[in-house]
């Protein structure tokens, strides 16, 4: 666990952990509000966002792409709301119409644009490339104290660390508002809380986290992080505070185990090459959720099932 670990695995591991936590935190509130699939919608629209950014700027660097993706997320949220109201269409269908159309548009633009000079990889956008975020100049654990080496850390690490810190700060700051308005929106309105702004802010924060994370773990996997750790956490406890803590724990566990299995698992089976770390992280988070569904203390529904909950 020496120089090789620090050079090859430390950065991806940290990025994976930070991305998972940044997504899991808002995910807690999204699933309580039955808005879990907004993450699905956001994850699909980042592709057209980065394609448009590329078409406008001609480069594939991080900042324009992130802005493009964030812009696409906001456009999507607005479109979904508009379709819901203008067309009197239920939320799931409105989301489905919006994000599939935008995604198709993104694929078309990708095909049409001249990507011969730059490689815009659809697969990368979907599946990420965690394994390739290597810390080149690291020589060992003491590189953590070496400013020259630190300067060569993958940029994704800095970005996701900042976003994660912001997400944590927002969660802590607006904790009471989030808790009240998620539980009983009418009551929150009566108290004078800006519930519409809170809801919108939550979705935008989630979009932010998704966009920052997608560069490392790809867009589709981000949904797993929005949903699986908080869902598993929900089954573990009846208290929101504990649920959030459990969700962070599960997110970290998924990231670490997922990365380890992806990188070293094949070696245990006698194969040579690593498999997709992002996919494995999602798979591990799913396994944790599965175990929670089977064994967690508060997994059972209390009271009569709501018609729209039970299939």
């Amino acid at each position, binding site marked *: 666990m020496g120089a090789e670990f620090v050079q090859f695995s430390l950065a991806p591991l940290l990025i994976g952990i930070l991305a998972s936590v940044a997504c899991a935190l808002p995910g807690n509130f999204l699933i309580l509000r039955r808005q879990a699939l907004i993450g699905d919608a956001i994850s699909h629209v980042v592709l057209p966002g980065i394609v448009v950014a590329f078409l406008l700027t001609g480069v594939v660097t991080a900042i324009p792409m992130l802005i493009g993706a964030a812009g696409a997320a906001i456009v999507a949220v607005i479109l979904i709301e508009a379709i819901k109201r203008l067309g009197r269409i239920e939320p799931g269908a409105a989301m489905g119409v919006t994000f599939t159309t935008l995604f198709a548009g993104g694929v078309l633009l990708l095909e049409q644009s001249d990507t011969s000079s730059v490689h815009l990889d659809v697969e990368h956008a979907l599946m990420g490339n965690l394994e390739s975020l290597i810390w080149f100049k690291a020589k060992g654990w003491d590189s953590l104290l070496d400013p020259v080496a630190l300067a060569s850390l993958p940029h994704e690490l800095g970005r996701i660390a900042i976003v994660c810190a912001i997400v944590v700060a927002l969660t802590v700051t607006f904790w009471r508002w989030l808790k009240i308005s998620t539980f009983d929106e009418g009551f929150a309105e009566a108290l004078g809380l800006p519930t519409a702004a809170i809801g919108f802010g939550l979705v935008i924060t989630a979009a932010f986290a998704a966009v920052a994370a997608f560069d490392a773990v790809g867009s589709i996997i981000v949904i797993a992080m929005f949903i699986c750790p908080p869902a598993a956490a929900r089954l573990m406890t009846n208290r929101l505070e504990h649920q959030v803590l459990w969700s962070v724990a599960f997110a970290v566990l998924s990231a670490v185990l997922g990365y380890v299995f992806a990188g070293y698992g094949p070696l245990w089976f006698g194969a040579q090459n690593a498999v997709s770390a992002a996919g494995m992280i999602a798979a591990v988070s799913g396994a944790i959720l599965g175990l929670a569904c089977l064994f967690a203390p508060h997994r059972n529904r*209390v009271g009569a099932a709501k018609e729209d909950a039970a299939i």
Partner: protein
Amino acid sequence: MTSSAQVELASEKGRSVRQDPVAAEAALAVRGLTVSYGEKPAVFSVDATFPAKAMTAIVGPNGAGKSTLLKAALGVIPRLSGEVTVFGQPIGTARDRIAYVPQRASVDWDFPTTVIDVVQMGLYRRVGLLGRLTGALRARANDCLDRVGMADFADRQIGQLSGGQQQRVFLARALAQDAELYLLDEPFAGVDAATERAIIDVLRSLRAEGKAVISVHHDLATVVDYFDNVFLINVRKIAEGPVATTFTGPNLNATYGGRLAATHIDQLQLAGGA
């Protein structure tokens, strides 16, 4: 007579056995029904016999299991234990003899369907997957709609109706099924006086035709006026029988746990003894 007779009832799997004669005559008979949500029992070990050719009210406080009893008997929600027979048959084989009018809240009123479509849904079982809705069947649906006073609204989309009108449409759907036993879940809740009159008129005409009507009822003041029998429940069965002998002060106190003020009970039309 029942004590010496065989009391093993046919199960839903259709084991045919000698049947309880009392249950055989009843429109709906329930033995040992228990339903629970999680660990809490909503309905506990209830025996009930609802007679044919009569109107019976199911009465009890909120959350006492009235609707649960009905839904579990029909199989709409799962039950922990109990046997249910309809006119002596296991309920699974007697579906064509029952019609159910659920609470309005369970439906999405923006659904793309018109009033007459909903009534025709009552005929789906009869025509099966491939059958056509013949002229005669369509006429039947129109008649049922007319019977509840909604004939002018046939082509309206259901979301444009009031609560009372929606209730009438549900009743018309049940009428279209031409059943022998009608089960209604709080049909009078939240409806206006004209609709209430329309519904009770239809139910009385059903009884005059020899059908059985069982209704979860929320309004104590009208029990004696509308119904022949009453079934009092508060998780467990409290009492059942003709209104005259069963809808009494002591029974109501037992059902409502002393929550009904004494004066309130006096105000209710109680027949024969407090």
